[in-house]
């Protein structure tokens, strides 16, 4: 009856990153860090996990000699997020 919640997304920071990216076309690492209040190291680890799962794309480039990392959700990430929300809603509707 209940589908398991995706363990990749069922994590505070990874879920926050995906929720942020679902509403944006793309965002820089510094922007995501600011909005999620995460440390750079922890965020770096979590977005790598999302990338390894195929949920986000990461682009690294240099701007004014500074490294710039830009993240963008993938179609697979959108689908995973939608499924996660759907499953979450069924858990919550049963709890009510």
């Amino acid at each position: 009856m209940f589908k398991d919640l995706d363990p990749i997304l069922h994590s505070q920071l990874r879920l926050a990153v995906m929720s942020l990216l679902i509403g944006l076309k793309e965002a820089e690492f510094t922007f995501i860090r600011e909005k999620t209040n995460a440390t750079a190291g922890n965020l770096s680890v979590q977005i790598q996990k999302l990338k390894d799962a195929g949920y986000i794309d990461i682009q690294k480039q240099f701007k004014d000699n500074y490294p710039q990392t830009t993240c963008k959700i993938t179609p697979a990430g959108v689908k995973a997020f939608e499924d996660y929300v759907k499953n979450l809603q069924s858990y919550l509707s049963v709890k009510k």
Partner: protein
Amino acid sequence: MEEKNLTEEESMLIIQQMINTAKHEQKDNGVGWILWGWLLLLVSVLTYINLYTRWFSTYYFWTYFGILSLLLILYSVVKYYFFRKGERARTYTGELFQKLNVGFFITIMFIIFSMNTGLNPMKGFPLLIGLYGFWILIYGTALDFKPSIIAAYITWGLGFAGFFVHSFETIMLLHGSAALVGYIIPGHIAYAEFKKLNR
């Protein structure tokens, strides 16, 4: 953000908070609309006064407005392509608005060109007002901003009325009113709301 076991309610709260954060990035501060609206209103009023005082030729102020508009377009194109590094997040609506603005200004140029090559300005200005209404509706819908959506319909009403008037003075009054209703008032409301959100 520390990693911990999430409850379903906490998950939903995180999703809502982050989506609201993303929505804030899509809000327009209204400054562009205010500037554009006041310029349109100013030129309409000056032209109206000029029609009675005959200081200058009929379209004197519109000629300079056209030159200023071209410079503003050039400035925004240069800013977009060469100075975008300040943007840390890009939104789908932001991309849409960029394309919409390009289409809007190209179409304005088409109408202005038509008025300079045979189209009677008595018909050309109502067409311009109609175009303003279109832009305002798309912006208002994309931003879910009711004042703009309402303003679009009022603007169209003013534009449509323009087809039935017989004096250029009245056209200028209608055009100035469209600028006030369509750009200035919603622009100031958007600015006030944007300031409140970013306090």
